């Protein structure tokens, strides 16, 4: 089964082929990248099929590793671990990756740097697959960072404009705040358990609760950065400055879910801690609510989807915090498909409407049938409507919360589901119904529509696999309980209805601010993103800038001042010495002013003159010393 490694290596090879090319050649070599990801998809399906029957009780089917570093008695390796979780992730990543790459052939075909775009997509795919296949936390971390680079490059893809440039920097730095925690978590893990290997850290080593809590919380902090959890969520909405298909792949389906994947992998440590699980749940439910509320006031269609992603990732953290590995992973999978679908649909809409502002859209349903149908499926899945996939995974999360007795979190999660339904309706009715505002709306190219169709089909039907997914991961699988299913359906239904009531009934006049009129203060707070960005910008970003300036002044005036002061004291010392020499000693003999003048000139030459003297003296002293030793020795 050595081919499993090839799944990750093929896109890496594609990257290595594309990078050294000149821009013009690279633009023509795009098929290299597409071919790599398609083959990876085929191999991933093969790997999945080999794990599929029963999932082998959650155990690894294939494992191989090579050492890349040796430290004393510790070997650090890079490995390939095929177990049910990684098998599922392989398929998700390569499937969405293929969809996005095919879609981009249409979406990006006029871009002057399309080759570079595909090169970075390839590197990203390789890193994500490497992360998924990791058999240890260090490898996971390294792949994680490389994904961060790709995210940075794609967000800033149109770097000639200011906004993408700023957004890419913000994304890299914000996620790196989390990465500091991740790195320290690795250090604690290494000191405590003496290894990064899953086998040792997750199975063999007996964790003490205190150490487990420290490691879990640090890893969680890393995951919060990557998965845009409050309060480290601020980078993701800005990241929408990148090309939309890249957002679909990286900032919706895969990379942002890596934090969830990390917590899922490390869940045995979290469970020893207990505290860490609670924290994970609180972070998750807060994010689910905050993300949902912020999504409800955005006018930019991509930003609605971005905040929606934040909110749904929060849902996954809630599930993991409740100990629900299956529910969390399942929501990751369904979300990956329906959210990438929504992003690809948004890309078509933006191309057609020539705007990202939903207030300038409307009536798309009449002109763009395929986009409308697929986008609707994605919307219903996101809102959690039966039988679309989001319903099933959300239901599993609610079920586990109820069963574990987390009633408050259950209620809050329901509230988040309600908000979700509202903003989904708000988006859908604004974009697809009402009067058409643009004359030249037309459906997208077929290479863009086919990937959307595939993702829509998956989003529509994958839900029925729900119990089998649990069995695949080695857990008991059940069909949803009627009571919870009905509750969540009702909540979603009411939310959608409310959304229609407020935003869907328009005929001519577009009322953009029904919410604003009724709850001004709340609305203002939400449009200002709950002050997160402002606070960070004022206190952290500008604060650091000011601090750096201050330290720079301190360095120049104080630290270097002391050095120069010492130099000056030394120089005036020699000056005095020199004056005494000439004035007192020579002066006593000659008593002429001309000598003083000469001395002054000599002093002025100190800067350049004395250095050679010191040097000469030093070398001479050394040579004499040597000679003396040699003579004495002879």
């Amino acid at each position, binding site marked *: 089964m050595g081919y499993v490694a090839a799944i990750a290596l093929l896109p890496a090879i594609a990257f290595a082929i594309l990078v050294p090319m000149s821009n013009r050649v690279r633009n023509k070599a795009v098929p290299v990248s597409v071919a790599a990801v398609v083959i990876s998809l085929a191999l991933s399906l093969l790997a999945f099929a080999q794990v599929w029957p029963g999932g082998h009780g959650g155990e690894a089917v294939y494992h191989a590793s090579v050492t890349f570093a040796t430290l*004393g008695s510790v070997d650090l390796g890079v490995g390939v671990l095929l177990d049910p979780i990684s098998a599922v992730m392989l398929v998700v990543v390569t499937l969405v990756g293929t969809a996005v790459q095919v879609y981009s052939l249409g979406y990006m075909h006029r871009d002057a740097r399309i080759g570079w775009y595909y090169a970075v997509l390839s590197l990203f795919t390789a890193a994500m697959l490497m992360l998924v296949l990791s058999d240890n936390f260090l490898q996971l971390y390294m792949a994680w960072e490389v994904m961060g680079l790709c995210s940075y490059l794609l967000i800033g893809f149109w770097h000639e404009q200011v906004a993408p440039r700023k957004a890419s920097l913000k994304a890299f730095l914000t996620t790196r705040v989390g990465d500091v925690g991740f790195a320290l978590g690795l250090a604690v893990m290494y000191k405590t358990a003496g290894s990064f290997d899953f086998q040792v850290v997750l199975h063999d080593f007996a964790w003490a609760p205190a150490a487990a809590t420290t490691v879990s919380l640090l890893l969680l902090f890393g995951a919060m950065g990557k998965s845009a959890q409050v309060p480290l969520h601020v980078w993701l909405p800005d990241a929408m400055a990148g090309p939309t298909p890249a957002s679909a792949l990286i900032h919706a389906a895969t990379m942002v879910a890596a934090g969830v994947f990390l917590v899922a992998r490390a869940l045995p440590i979290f469970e020893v801690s207990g505290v860490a699980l609670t924290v994970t749940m609180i972070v998750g439910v807060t994010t689910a609510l905050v993300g949902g509320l912020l999504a409800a006031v955005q006018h930019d269609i991509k930003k609605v989807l971005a905040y929606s992603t934040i909110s749904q990732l929060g849902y996954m953290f809630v599930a993991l915090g409740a100990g629900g590995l299956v529910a969390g992973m399942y929501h990751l999978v369904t979300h990956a498909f329906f959210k990438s679908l929504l992003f690809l649909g948004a890309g078509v809409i933006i191309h057609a409407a020539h705007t990202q502002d939903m207030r300038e859209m409307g009536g798309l349903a009449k002109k763009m049938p395929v986009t409308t149908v697929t986008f609707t499926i994605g919307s219903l899945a996101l809102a959690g409507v039966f039988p679309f996939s989001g319903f099933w995974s959300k239901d599993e999360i609610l079920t586990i919360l109820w069963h574990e007795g987390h009633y408050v979190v259950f209620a809050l999660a329901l509230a988040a589901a309600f908000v979700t339904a509202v903003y989904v309706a708000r988006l859908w009715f604004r974009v697809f119904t009402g009067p058409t505002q643009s004359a030249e709306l037309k459906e997208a190219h077929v290479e863009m529509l086919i990937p959307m169709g595939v993702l829509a089909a998956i989003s529509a039907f994958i839900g029925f696999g729900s119990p089998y997914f649990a069995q695949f991961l080695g857990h008991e699988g059940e069909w949803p309980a009627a009571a919870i299913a009905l509750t969540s359906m009702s909540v979603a239904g009411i939310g959608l209805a409310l959304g229609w009531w407020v935003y869907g009934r328009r005929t001519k006049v577009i009322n953009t601010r029904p919410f604003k009129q009724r709850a001004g203060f709340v609305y203002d707070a939400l449009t200002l993103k709950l002050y997160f960005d402002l606070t960070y910008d004022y206190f952290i970003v500008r604060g650091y800038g000011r601090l750096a300036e201050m330290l720079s002044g301190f360095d120049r005036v104080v630290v270097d001042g002391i050095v120069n002061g010492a130099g000056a004291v030394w120089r005036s010392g020699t000056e005095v010495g020199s004056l005494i020499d000439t004035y007192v000693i020579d002066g006593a003999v000659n008593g002429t002013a001309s000598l003083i003048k000469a001395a002054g000139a000599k002093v002025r030459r100190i800067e350049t003159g004395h250095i050679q003297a010191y040097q000469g003296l030093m*070398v001479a002293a050394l040579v004499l010393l040597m000679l003396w030793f040699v003579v004495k020795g002879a």
Partner: protein
Amino acid sequence: MLLSAIVLLPLAGAVVSALVPKDRGDIARWIAAVVTAVDLALVVFVALRFDVGAGMQFVENVAWVPQFGISYHLGVDGISITMLALSALLSLVAVVASWNMKTKPAAYFAMLLLLEVGMNGVFLALDFVLFYVFWELVLVPMYFLIGTWGGPRKEYASIKFFLYTLFGSVFMLIGIIALYLQTGTFDMTAMVGAGLSESFQWWVFAAFFLGFAVKVPIFPLHTWLPDAHVEAPTAASVLLAGILLKMGTYGFIRIALPILPHAANQWAPFITALAAISIVYGAALAFAQTDLKKLVAYSSVSHMGFVMLGIASGTVEGLNGAIAVMFSHGVVTGLLFLIVGMVYERTHTRMIQDVSGLSNQVPVAGGLLAFASFASLGLPGLSGFVGEFLTLLGAWKSDVPAVWVVIAAIGVLLAAAYTLSMVQRVILGTPSPIVSKITDLTVREVSLLVPLVVLTLVVGLYWNSLLRFTDPAVARIVELLAGA
């Protein structure tokens, strides 16, 4: 004889270059190129024949002044071979980078070769007198390189560099003499495990600390570095950052730790604190700079802080990591200075606000500068990450206060901040008026950078390419520290 050849060949080259007529700079540069290339080949030969399991190898030990225990003693172990390789490689790079030197070329290339003598010698010497001679020898050519071929404030910068580091080495000399008086020998290897008393160790360590700390440089003894870097010609900057700074940390690893292990343990918390401060202080100052060279110079203070962090940890991970940072910083900072120099030759400015949009105007230069930047900020898969991560790992594993390790880890974030804000302003965006007139790198320039790029990738992807040399040597030092 091989090691002697590695040290003395550049000396012969320097003498011959110096004798070349003043108007025949082309002869001098060819001499320098051939000599440094042959020297590098000899080093590679040594590395290929090197037995990673054994200790000191290729040893040459001849009694020189037996009455005073002075010997001509050279040798390489896994630590010195990595530094020697770096020194030989960067010397060749420095020569090729200076190919178009017009001002007094004969003297210039002689100085570069003389510098290599000192650098190679420092990493090979196992006798204190010899070590001191090489150590001081390095100052002379570097002083002239900055003072003669430097920028507008070259006098100030070169004198500051010279006096500051001379000030440090006086303390080192005191330490050496004290050790001699106590042990009756100048042989470094003989002093290891000499049973020096604890208080004696403490005082001698203090002397060595001052000597080495200036060279590294550790906060607050770093202010000579930005001035020297800004004024130095490109090749001198490469060697200054790439090799000269490492002499200080090499001194800690080769001398202070094995000979004074008890004191090293006692000093570890203090050094850790200064290392952590150097990391964040250097990073914050780099963030505030408007001159590209100064930015790189302050980033060196930050990176060398990681080296000290690893050294102070006294662990296998930390010391391996320290050497990995030393190696990587040499290669990556070399890349950064070379590319900044190449851009400067075209734009005649190093001011960040004057340079923007490199990636659109000159994609090769912009791309390579971006590559070096990501290597510098510690992206996994490139060499910078290896040491940064291992030093943090080692520091956390050791008994030093955890708060300093956390501060050091924040340095990783700050590194991304100053590096990427530079990338954002200089590489990205639309070309500035000055940049829109320049042409991309020539084949010679690219071929100069490619070996460094390849090394960055090889070390970053396969850590054992470096660790296989250092790990066994480090293990011996860790054993000494643990036994003290």
